[in-house]
């Protein structure tokens, strides 16, 4: 059968029988397969492919997708359809089946304005650019996430998954940019400096009042943007005229009043009294929504937190500034704020002054000042009194360093954790924020383990030192060079002789040190799963001791982390030695204290350690995994193909960051799957763990020669 002959209804049914598990689910696919059979082969493949992919996540979602999809194919761009399907799966991952089914059912809402054509701006595609864009604009460091509409809570800007109001791709991108800019402008030009909810209580129809207020604010912010970012303003005008949006005469006059640079959100509230009795204009295309509850919740917490934090920081600055030690204990004098002289920055730049002397605040304090200024318009006097000792509960303020042990216990919550995606090979896409990861400490055990290991392997250690020293001394001298630091006497003598014999004299008369200055950072990722219990664990610890002892002679930077976990919600990395931590007694005690824990989920560990390694400046970066076996996790599908594919994907990501991954394993069956994950040359299977440091030396040589 030719590859482009459409599948028959029977063939389709057979296919669906498998992926929708009809034997158990009894889903009715009769009509669907009929409908599908009249479509082109290419369309069939597209729809069946996605149905299969969704089915690996949830069969019901896949079925609902398939019921709607053939019809949608005519009026929906494929890219948008894919986004829709992925969005449903993400939602399933995050909040469950009910919400995901809602998304599949409300496909029209998802498409927004039914223009979901090829020109759409898809959130995942534009996020990177727009996030950089807002960070470039002044103000608080905002976050950007996908949401059900364009709105902000004053810290995170939300954009819908798809923006497709306009027929042209560039215009849709401009529209998404304009939305982001308007939301940024709300945080930047003081929309939240008035208590919106409270102000609206005065009106019988609060909802109507809110929408009017939002439209008035939009006028005011447009004027701000026109002043500060005229190029962007021109773009925004272009969008409005492309969509045929104009102001009515009454609203044009409002716009004029609000164009005054001194106008505030308060002026909008005053104008609202007039506007309330008139009709509501169509919202501007980039206006988005205004959600006072979301804002209030976020702001209340922030204002309180930042006040405390700022006063604590001032206390630190004050004690840094006082040179006389006694003075530090005296009751703190308040700081002053002065407006710095002539600045082009649109936000008045403030100077912090103590005892008439300007204090240069560090970056974090400067950012705090900006954030406070944005919330309150200025920095109130009571903020300028340094916090007294014990005035604030440190727990309330400090970057949350919660003891992971406590977090895992009792009601589970995800505060202070890192989130990592995981590759779902069935879906051929990532599961977002799938793994909840924490760094933990290995409990150090101060005992004789390291000393004993060194004694036990004294011979091997000597050999290893030699091997590694040889690596180090690869800074050898090159003779007979055209340039160099020393004269090569042998060469000189020879060439003088040549010259006196009438032959041409060589100019390669120098010795040059071939300085291959070492510039390596190595990350060791050590399997701490339960299966290492027993001799493997001992052997791992011994070889880590040998490794550290020898790596110290090279002077290279290296770090050691152990990994383990139970399910995606509890992924753990154990710090044994951080990159620039010296190899000291604590590190030795941690090595001794390595104990087998739970399971072998690997993707998150590779992703997190790659990220750490990426932040290190080195010419060569190595990620070496020591493991006893294949990826595996408790009671979910990380076992088997899924885990292998996710690990492989994480390794591909690492390589993209310029990291060289290697795996050293003692799983004799590893040859089945390691080449697939690491590539044929990047793994090695050993039968005796003390050989491990020798292998590491080999890897080093290969990479640094």
């Amino acid at each position, binding site marked *: 059968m030719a590859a482009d002959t459409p599948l028959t209804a029977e063939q389709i049914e057979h296919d669906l029988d498998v992926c929708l598990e009809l034997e158990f689910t009894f889903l009715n696919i009769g009509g669907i397969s009929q409908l599908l059979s009249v479509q082109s082969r290419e369309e069939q493949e597209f729809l069946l492919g996605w149905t299969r992919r969704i089915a690996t996540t949830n069969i019901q979602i896949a079925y609902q997708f398939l019921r709607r999809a053939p019809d949608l194919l005519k009026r929906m761009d494929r890219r948008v359809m894919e986004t829709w399907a992925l969005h449903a799966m993400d939602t399933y991952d995050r909040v469950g089946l009910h919400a995901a089914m809602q998304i599949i059912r409300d496909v029209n809402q998802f498409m927004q304005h039914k223009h979901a054509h090829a020109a759409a701006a898809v959130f995942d595609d534009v996020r990177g*650019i727009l996030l950089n864009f807002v960070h470039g604009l002044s103000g608080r460091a905002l976050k950007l996430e996908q949401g059900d509409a364009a709105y902000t809570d004053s810290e995170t800007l939300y954009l819908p998954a798809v923006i497709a109001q306009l027929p042209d791709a560039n215009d849709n991108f401009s529209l998404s940019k304009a939305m982001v800019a308007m939301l940024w402008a709300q945080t930047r030009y003081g929309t939240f400096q008035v208590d919106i909810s409270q102000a609206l209580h005065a009106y019988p129809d609060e909802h109507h009042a809110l929408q009017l207020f939002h439209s008035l604010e939009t006028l005011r912010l447009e004027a701000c943007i026109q002043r500060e970012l005229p190029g962007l303003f021109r773009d925004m005008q272009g969008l409005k005229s492309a969509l045929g949006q104009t102001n009515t005469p009454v609203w044009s006059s409002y716009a004029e009043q609000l164009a005054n640079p001194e106008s505030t959100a308060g002026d909008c509230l005053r104008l609202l009294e007039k506007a309330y009795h008139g009709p509501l204009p169509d919202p501007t295309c980039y206006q988005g929504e205004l959600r006072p509850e979301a804002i209030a919740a976020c702001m209340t917490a922030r204002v309180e937190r930042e006040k405390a934090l700022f006063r604590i920081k001032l206390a630190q600055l004050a004690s840094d500034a006082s040179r006389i030690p006694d003075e530090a204990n005296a009751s703190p004098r308040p700081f002053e704020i002065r407006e710095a002289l002539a600045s082009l920055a649109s936000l008045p730049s403030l100077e912090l002054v103590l005892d008439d002397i300007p204090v240069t605040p560090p970056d974090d304090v400067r950012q705090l000042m900006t954030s406070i200024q944005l919330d309150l318009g200025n920095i109130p006097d009571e903020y300028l009194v340094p916090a007294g000792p014990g005035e604030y509960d440190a727990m309330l303020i400090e970057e949350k360093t919660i003891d992971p042990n406590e977090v895992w216990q009792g009601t589970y919550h995800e505060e202070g954790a890192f989130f990592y995606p995981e590759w779902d090979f069935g879906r051929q896409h990532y599961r977002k924020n799938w793994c909840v990861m924490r760094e933990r400490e290995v409990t150090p055990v101060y005992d004789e383990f390291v000393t004993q290991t060194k004694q036990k392997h004294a011979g091997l250690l000597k050999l290893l030192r030699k091997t590694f020293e040889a690596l180090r001394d690869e800074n050898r001298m090159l003779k007979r060079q055209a340039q160099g630091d020393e004269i090569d006497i042998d060469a000189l003598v020879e060439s003088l002789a040549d010259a006196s014999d009438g032959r041409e004299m060589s*100019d390669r008369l120098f010795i040059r040190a071939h300085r291959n200055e070492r*510039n390596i950072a190595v990350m060791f990722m050590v399997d701490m799963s339960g299966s290492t219990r027993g001799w493997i664990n001992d052997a791992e610890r011994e070889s880590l001791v040998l490794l550290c002892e020898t790596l110290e002679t090279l002077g290279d*930077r290296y770090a050691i982390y152990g990994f383990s976990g139970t399910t995606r919600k509890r992924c753990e990395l154990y710090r044994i030695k951080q990159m620039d931590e010296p190899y000291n007694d604590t590190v030795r005690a941690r090595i001794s204290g390595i104990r087998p824990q739970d399971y072998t989920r690997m993707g998150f560990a590779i992703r997190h350690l790659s990220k750490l390694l990426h932040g290190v400046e080195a010419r060569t970066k190595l990620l070496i995994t020591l493991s006893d076996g294949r990826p595996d996790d408790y009671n979910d599908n990380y076992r088997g193909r899924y885990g292998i594919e996710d690990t492989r994907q994480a390794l591909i990501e690492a390589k993209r960051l310029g990291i060289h991954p290697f795996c050293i394993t003692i799983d004799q069956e590893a040859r089945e799957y390691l080449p697939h994950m690491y590539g044929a040359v990047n793994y090695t299977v050993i039968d005796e763990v003390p050989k491990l440091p020798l292998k590491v030396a080999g890897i080093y040589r290969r990479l640094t020669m």
Partner: protein
Amino acid sequence: MTKPNAVAIEITSTMNSQSVAPEEYFVEEEPYYESSGDEIAVFEAAYRNKLPVLLKGPTGCGKTRFMEFMAWRLKRPLITVSCHDDLTASDLVGRFLVKGGETVWVDGPLARSVRSGAICYLDEIVEARKDTMVVIHPLADDRRVLPMEKLGALLEADDDFCLAISYNPGYQSVLKDLKQSTRQRFVALNFEYPHAELERRIVANESGVAAPIAENLIKFAHMTRNLKGSGLEEGASTRLLVHAGKLIASGIAPVTACRSAIAQAITDDDDMLKAIQELSSSLF
């Protein structure tokens, strides 16, 4: 074939020898330099007291210009060496060369400055190999001598000699950090991008663009500097603004000039380039 059994090595005088030439000159005309604090007075005082100077600051913020200005003011020649990771102590101090069967010693730029009482400016000192520090340390404390290991001699510095080095603390990296034992020998001057008003004046002056354009260029620079740490290693320097200004002054559209002279120069990342592009087109 007979081989001579001894080779005569002769050390000739240094002044007329040629080596890889660093930029060496007396600065004849007053360089345009906008001072943003008391750096001129501090440098002068350090010079009078024979103290070496460390200029800290990001790339393109006016350190080289400042050195040129000080050289002019103090009427000393300025020898600048840009350090790189192949630069060795011999490159600074000097080495033997073989010429027509004779071995000739040639002073490196540092030795020449030390002898002739020039200002020697070692740009981006942390980039150089670690062995260079060995020769810098004795020069940078009150011994003021340059060890010339190959000659087995110690060269005493001329009274007018001055050592200045520069260092960019922004590239925080453990490998390339300046050691305490080095930095604690120097009087340190901290350079930052000039404040907005001053930077606008510099850009207008150096490139010839009108004040409003210069002002927009500064705003754009601040946007890129906001991005430092969240995707950009470094924001646009004063130097890049001057470049963009010059393009604009020759008739290139501002958005294009910002792209070519600034955006492409500070990043290769696609999303970042596009974002920066959007930022500049927002302004103009």
